[in-house]
């Protein structure tokens, strides 16, 4: 399921179109480097070490981590935030381990994703995971079948997590509210 806002790059591939200098957003890089280490995207010398070892690139050719690092350095904010393929990284961190310049490939990509989320660009399935945590404290909450399985095994029907401690769940809820997570994911 896709969010209505995530349609800019679906159906056609703007990635192959030449870059127009008006697309360069200088404030984007400033924002990016607020996070320690992200400024290292500028050290990229295009060796392709990151994208070559990427298991996702072998499966989905539209996904290219090197390209995203280069785009981040250039400040191509709109292209990046609206590219649905930035969500294909499994965070296996192979690329980040291999980069000879110690570019934080994955951390940078995740930071870019948070910038998309801050603009309300988010998949519905991800909103559902976020809602689970807000509503239960678990990304994957217990269900009837597994309550049954737990009993069969001789475990407590409900695990000793937030699921068993309402006051602990209240704390989680309070914390999520305080950091503005509820609001962020309902954008």
């Amino acid at each position, binding site marked *: 399921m896709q969010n209505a806002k995530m349609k800019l790059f679906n159906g056609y591939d703007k990635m192959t179109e030449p870059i127009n200098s008006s697309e360069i957003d200088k404030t984007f890089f400033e924002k990016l480097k607020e996070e320690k280490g992200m400024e290292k995207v500028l050290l990229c010398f295009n060796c392709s070490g990151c994208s070559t070892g990427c298991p996702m690139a072998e499966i989905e050719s539209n996904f290219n981590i090197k390209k995203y690092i280069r785009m981040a350095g250039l400040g191509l904010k709109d292209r990046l935030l609206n590219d649905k393929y930035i969500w294909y990284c499994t965070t296996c961190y192979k690329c980040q381990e291999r980069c000879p310049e110690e570019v934080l490939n994955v951390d940078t990509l995740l930071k870019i994703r948070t910038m998309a989320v801050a603009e309300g660009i988010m998949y519905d399935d991800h909103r*559902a995971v976020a809602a689970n945590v807000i509503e239960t*404290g678990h990304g994957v909450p217990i269900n009837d079948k597994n309550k049954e399985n737990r009993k069969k095994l001789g475990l407590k029907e409900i695990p000793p997590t937030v699921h068993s401690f309402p006051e602990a769940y209240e704390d989680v809820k309070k914390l999520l509210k305080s950091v503005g997570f509820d609001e962020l994911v309902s954008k």
Partner: protein
Amino acid sequence: MSLNATENGSKKDLSLFLGCVAPNRYPGIELATLKVMEKLDIGIRDLEGASCCPAPGVFKSFDKTTWLSLASRNIVLSEDSGTDLLTICNGCYGSLIEADHELKEDPEKKKKVNEKLAEIGMEYKGTSNVRHIIEYLYKEITPEKIKENVTVPLEGIKVAVHYGCHMIRPSKGKDLDSVENPRFFDELVDATGAKSVDYEEKMLCCGAGGGVRSVFPETALKMSEKKLDILKAGGFDCIVDACPFCHLQYDVGQKTLAKEGKEYNIPVLHYMQLLGLAFGYTPEELGITLNVTKNCDFDNKILNLSKKTN
């Protein structure tokens, strides 16, 4: 030899951080952990009231402050009970150890997080360590000691070890032997009498992480399929993982692939369950039979091994 040993060198007791997938989808992993730890005489208690770690790839993609705050609350629960935090999941380990490192290294971040935690009457101090069951057993207990406790050597079982990503990578702050070709998990498997055999693409990701499974399940499955094909061709008896999320991806994934006519029937075991078998528990007692991918041949092999030792 532990990097994480406490100042006086003594080991602290452990709190078991369950996360989400183990208790809520694969409770056999939780039970196996409790049984195995008891056998090894390792003091362990539930980390009561813990939440989602939160899932690293997903929550760090949503909002960094949310990720750090929720993770730090879980760490504080462990600090307040005077224990180290033990994870049985690569995702939980990756999330919590990284959060712990960030807070220990960056006083500014720690201050900000503590402002949030103060609202629920908590404070992060940095007195607890985050451990993964695999590196913990390897460093603090050792494969030799585990071997001494084996009552049913799993001879003849050909194991495909799946390290999974976040136990190893990012390697920063993890004190490992090698990122590209680690051996410690294999040694623990060999200690059970089974044999860990190398295979092509051993370090390949299961495909589920980073929020990919929830939005693009077919793409995630393609990555799993790649490894499953190699394992089938190699005649492996089972996959042994250390992460309930990889576990779910391979176990449920095989069922989805079977619907497309691709049969694998490779049993998926968490290391706690493999060790449980070597300690004499049955597949039923360890919840292995609750997997959606069933394989009677494997169950029979185990049965025969335990008959042999009785």
